[in-house]
């Protein structure tokens, strides 16, 4: 019996569960225009995991990085949900990400 995959699966469940929370909070406090930074951070973490000798730590980092990339594609839809009134809408001015004008011209990814 090899518990490696099963335990990684359980960790994936927790990390994805955490994703539901940070996407909602992230959209509320930062706004969906931060998506390229979240995506970039996720990609960096996935690249970094290649250099980690421990299988456990490398795999957990990979799962976390992938969930950041996925979550970054959910931010736009979460912004729409908040504007429709399904989630709390943050009426205050949120911090603009660096190069916000460029980011506004990019189509926010959504899967």
């Amino acid at each position: 019996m090899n518990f490696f995959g099963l335990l990684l699966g359980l960790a994936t469940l927790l990390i994805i569960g955490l994703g539901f929370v940070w996407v909602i909070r992230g959209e509320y406090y930062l706004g969906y225009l931060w998506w390229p930074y979240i995506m970039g951070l996720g990609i960096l973490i996935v690249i970094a995991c290649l250099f980690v000798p421990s299988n456990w730590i490398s795999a957990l980092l990979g799962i976390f990085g992938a969930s950041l990339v996925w979550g970054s594609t959910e931010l736009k839809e979460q912004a729409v949900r908040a504007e429709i009134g399904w989630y709390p809408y943050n009426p205050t001015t949120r911090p603009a990400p660096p190069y916000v004008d460029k980011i506004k011209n990019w189509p926010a990814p959504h899967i």
Partner: protein
Amino acid sequence: MTLNWIGLVAAVTTFMGVWIGHVSVRKIEYISPTVWVPSGVALFLGVLLELGALVSENPYLSALLGIFGVTVLWDALEFWRQHRRVEKGHAPANPDNPRHTRLLRTSAMSTTMDWLDRNPTGRLLSTEELRAIQEGRL
């Protein structure tokens, strides 16, 4: 320096598992007359994948099966959540699906239109705008 590929396998499996689940749960729930059949199939497949993870000695295969299996088990739950979304109007109902036509009849919130098929505006939408979206004017 030798690279450790296990993390990349875990990352790609996580992303693909979530992606495949996200798309297929929506498509299957849209056309399926029942929720319990696709949900039960996902539950069965998920358990099989986890058993596969337990018996495979290869760490790459064990990680792949274990992670993908969990996303499939999550999908089993998502079929029910998606049904609830259709009931609340948060996901579009299919007028050709008898289960959805029942929801369209019994739930005032359910609708065939997709509320989320739009871009953010940067402000909270007014009641007037929400009505315009509902009536297909916006």
